[in-house]
């Protein structure tokens, strides 16, 4: 498992990030002693560091330079400051990337994964991709594949994203707007139909695997994953 060190003095943010990274099978650690973070860094020798700028005693730039004396591991800054100068300062001090608060989990995980992939390579990545299993049905959201009884079907990126959100939300109903956010196309934008079209396609692919009625529409609210194992 890849080790990530989170250096952030706001405990809640640190814990939330830690929990989220753990969902992606990344071994995240939190710093508690801000007088000297180097002992923990040396002991842990993390694969990647998430570093806040405003810290008690010394700031993030200082620690970044300190880390750079002993390690070349990727360092991503997390900060509320969004000035050009702050970003330049961060990169000048040896950081690899920069995320401004408030940020989204998706951005963090995407940047973390990109850095890990770049530095340690795709194949060297020992961490496991998330998987979902229920009965005889298996779903690999990052490989866009769904499997049942030895038969595998490839999903489109949007279908995989939708299924992941529904599956994670179950037994609750996955909110329509939330699903929408997931498949919002950052470049060409989408209209009202896209969501229902994608859900229809997903249903059909599930049906091909012999899974019936597993996505229930809840009028005016969203969709619910209601998988029941049939023999």
């Amino acid at each position, binding site marked *: 498992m890849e080790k990530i060190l989170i250096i952030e003095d706001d405990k809640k*943010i640190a814990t939330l990030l830690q929990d989220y990274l753990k969902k992606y099978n990344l071994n995240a650690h939190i710093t508690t002693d801000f007088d000297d973070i180097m002992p923990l860094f040396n002991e842990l020798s993390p694969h990647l560091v998430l570093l806040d700028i405003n810290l008690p005693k010394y700031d993030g730039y200082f620690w970044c330079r300190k880390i750079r004396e002993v390690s070349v591991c990727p360092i991503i800054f997390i900060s509320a400051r969004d000035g050009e100068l702050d970003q330049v300062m961060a990169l000048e001090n040896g950081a690899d990337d920069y995320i401004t608060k408030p940020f989204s989990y998706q951005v963090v995980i995407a940047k973390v994964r990109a850095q890990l992939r770049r530095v340690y390579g795709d194949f060297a990545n020992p961490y496991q991709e998330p998987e979902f299993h229920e009965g005889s049905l298996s779903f690999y959201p990052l490989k866009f594949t769904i499997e049942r009884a030895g038969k595998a079907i490839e999903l489109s990126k949007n279908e995989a994203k939708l299924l992941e959100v529904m599956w994670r939300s179950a037994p609750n109903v996955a909110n329509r707007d939330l699903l929408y956010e997931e498949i919002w196309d*950052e470049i060409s934008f989408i209209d009202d139909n896209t969501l229902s079209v994608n859900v229809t396609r997903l249903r059909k692919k599930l049906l091909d695997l012999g899974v019936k009625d597993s996505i229930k529409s809840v009028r005016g609210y*969203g969709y619910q994953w209601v998988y029941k194992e049939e023999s």
Partner: protein
Amino acid sequence: MRLFIRSHLSFLLYTLILVLSTIAIFWLDGYKNHRLILYVIFLWAVLTILFLAVRYIAYRRVFERLTHPDKIASEFRLDEGSPFSQSFELYLSKQYQAYQIDLQKWRAKDADRNIFINQWVHQMKTPVSVIELMTQNQSDTILRSIQEETDKIQQGLDTVLYTSRLETFENDFVVEHIDLKTLVTEAVNDHKRLFIRQQLYPKVQIEDTIFLETDKKWFIFLLGQLISNAIKYSPQKGNTVEISAVTSATTYELTIRDHGIGIEKADLPRVFRPFFTGENGRKFQQSTGMGLFLVSEICKKLDYQLSIESEINVGTTILIRIPIRN
């Protein structure tokens, strides 16, 4: 000089009366010598002119100052001219110092307040981040609604930050060569959640070939204000917000069009004023009246021409003319 003469008119009148009365006394006493009279008049005139000349040289600074009251005094001549002139300069310099001290005090206060606002906004971003992370990707209705409010807080914080930055605009301006479509796309994506929630759809029609020399941060903020307005005032679901650009001879014309409630004719000329909320502000209660003011200020600084057209229940169109620079 004119002021000097005008302020000495009474003195001239006084000398004239003296001369005439002296001559009159001699004349009435029976001493009628034309040459003596001429001599007396000549003497008086020379003495008067001499007196005025000396006086003018001694008081020149004072009269110079008095004829240019719009110039702020910053140089003082405390060792020149007559004692009156010197003490006048001293008085001015004292007044100026007092005013400067007062001004410095206010400047320092203003700078402190700006720093405080900046720090405060950044501090507030941490709790907003926490709430944001705790409510992200959750289907729960309450959490969705909390997230909606967090979005509003975040927008508000940004507006505060940019308002206080506007004063130091020049220090905060980084010019980049950047294409308009990317800028618009980024601004639209920033408002993704708002679009989805209101069930509105962005329609962007901009060619990839339009490049601008501008500051990315300010430009996206400006667009963001206009987009969020377009969304806010389009309560009818299923509509679109259209963002398009055409190239004319000397400008790029960027339009942002919504099909919302529109703006009252009477309010239209005043929408760019600070704190102006108008009829729509009363209906929606979320307007600070700062959005369009900031937009117009930024456009002024960037040398863009901004205009607005609107019709009730048809929609509002914002047009920005961006000059093409070679």
